[in-house]
């Protein structure tokens, strides 16, 4: 079993308005089979024993499904391994790259204020969902799965979009801190299914308007988000959202309200 000492430069910041800075730590005897977060747990134990403030980072499931964890590792949102959340990144993958010095940064975006250290407030994504990312029609209790026939390619595509865990890595990786991939995934998975049709063109307008109001940047079609996304969500969904949005704006007979800028 391989172990290694790592030099970590960690972003420390006391609160949203505090000035942050990097602090350097040594993680000693890091086991190659630790996950990245376990490596940080270990370091935190040491910091606590030394009477220092442990490094704050977000996590919950540690299974790659909840979307809580978020660290930019040496410039890669969620670390260098494709389609992997940082909680599922293991140190053997990091060792394999020969890294012995690692920079840990929070998601950096105006719309994601830092709560503490590596923890950011991703409430903006929740507010995008609240603006229209749901179906308000009562569909009753669970029905037979095949009662409403949906062609397999469409249900597959809708499911691809629905795998978004709302982690915000797309925003972190985007040169413009745009939330286009997240919003597109959430707009599209409903917009492709029969239950989502009724509100399809209102939904896309409300969600895009909220996305803008939150202060995210615009999409410049660079494709960084798709590569950073732990679920591999395709930027084809962004094109799909753009098409639905422009169509809605041009052809809808009623307006939707522009939300006030979120503060």
């Amino acid at each position, binding site marked *: 079993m391989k172990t290694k000492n790592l030099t970590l430069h960690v972003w420390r910041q006391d609160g949203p308005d505090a000035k942050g800075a990097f602090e350097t730590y040594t993680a000693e005897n890091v086991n190659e089979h630790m996950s990245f977060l376990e490596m940080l747990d270990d370091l935190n134990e040491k910091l606590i024993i030394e009477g220092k403030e442990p490094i704050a980072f977000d996590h919950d499931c540690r299974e790659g499904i909840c979307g809580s964890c978020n660290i930019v590792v040496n410039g890669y949102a969620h670390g260098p391994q494709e389609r992997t959340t940082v909680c599922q990144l293991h140190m053997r993958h990091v060792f394999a790259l020969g890294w012995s010095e690692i920079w840990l940064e929070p998601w950096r975006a105006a719309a994601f204020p830092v709560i503490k250290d590596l923890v950011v407030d991703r409430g903006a994504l929740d507010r995008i969902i609240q603006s229209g990312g749901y179906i308000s029609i009562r569909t009753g209790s669970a029905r037979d799965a095949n009662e409403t026939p949906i062609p397999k390619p469409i249900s597959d595509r809708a499911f691809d979009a629905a795998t978004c865990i709302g982690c915000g890595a797309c925003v972190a990786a985007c040169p413009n801190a745009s939330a286009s991939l997240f919003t597109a995934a959430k707009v599209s998975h409903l917009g492709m299914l029969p239950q989502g049709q009724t509100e399809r063109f209102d939904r896309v307008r409300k969600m895009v308007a909220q996305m803008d109001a939150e202060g995210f940047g615009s999409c410049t079609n660079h494709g*960084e988000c798709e590569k950073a996304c732990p679920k591999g969500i395709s930027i084809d969904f962004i094109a799909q959202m753009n098409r639905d949005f422009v169509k809605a704006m041009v052809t809808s007979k009623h307006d939707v309200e522009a939300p006030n800028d979120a503060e």
Partner: protein
Amino acid sequence: MQRALTLYNTTIGKKAVMAASGFILLGFTVGHLSGNLKAFAGPTEYNEYARWLRTVPALLWGARIALLFAVLAHIGSAFQLWKRNKDARPSRYQKNVSVATDYAAKTMYFSGPILLFYILFHLAHLTFGGMLFGEGAMFGIEGYAWEVSNPYNNMVRGFQHWPVVIPYVLGVVALGVHLFHGIWSMFQSLGANHPKYNHLRRDLAIGLAALLTLGNLSFPIAVMAGYLEPTNLTFHFPELM
């Protein structure tokens, strides 16, 4: 009171404007190149074509106004989005890697302004050359004077001199790089995507960008290689005054 959402007030709307205006400008560059390729048919054909362009003022001015409008819309939206995107990430990453972004995408904010300056230079050279330099030497080049009825010579004789060739080549290369990302981006921004045809979007961007770059470079190359030469024929086209 709540305002109604308008297309142009949204980021996606502004991108749609960029795509649509970019499409108009792309259409112009294609037409512009195909018209200018007449240079290879000879000075008479080239100058006749230039004259013909001036014989339908409604068309000429219609096109000019549409182009001006497209340029302003393109730059205006680009500027607003640039500002917004800059504000969206106030604190920069210490470590920043890009995994997917290609050179063209990364340099849009450079190739764009280069193109703008190049277009101004190009207009000063071949459209307003007579107005700017009168009878005098163009760009201070000895013996290179504007010939009112002879656009062919204005072009060919310019490309015999490096001070004209260098900005031209830079401009044309910037155009190619800009279009490499721009054409692909245009489809994406307007939502023109279909799993069956998506791979063609990149191919089309590469093909068109290459065609326009090489096509436009063919003029200075042909002149410098001595294949296109100034003509001694004289023309009298009052339309070109």
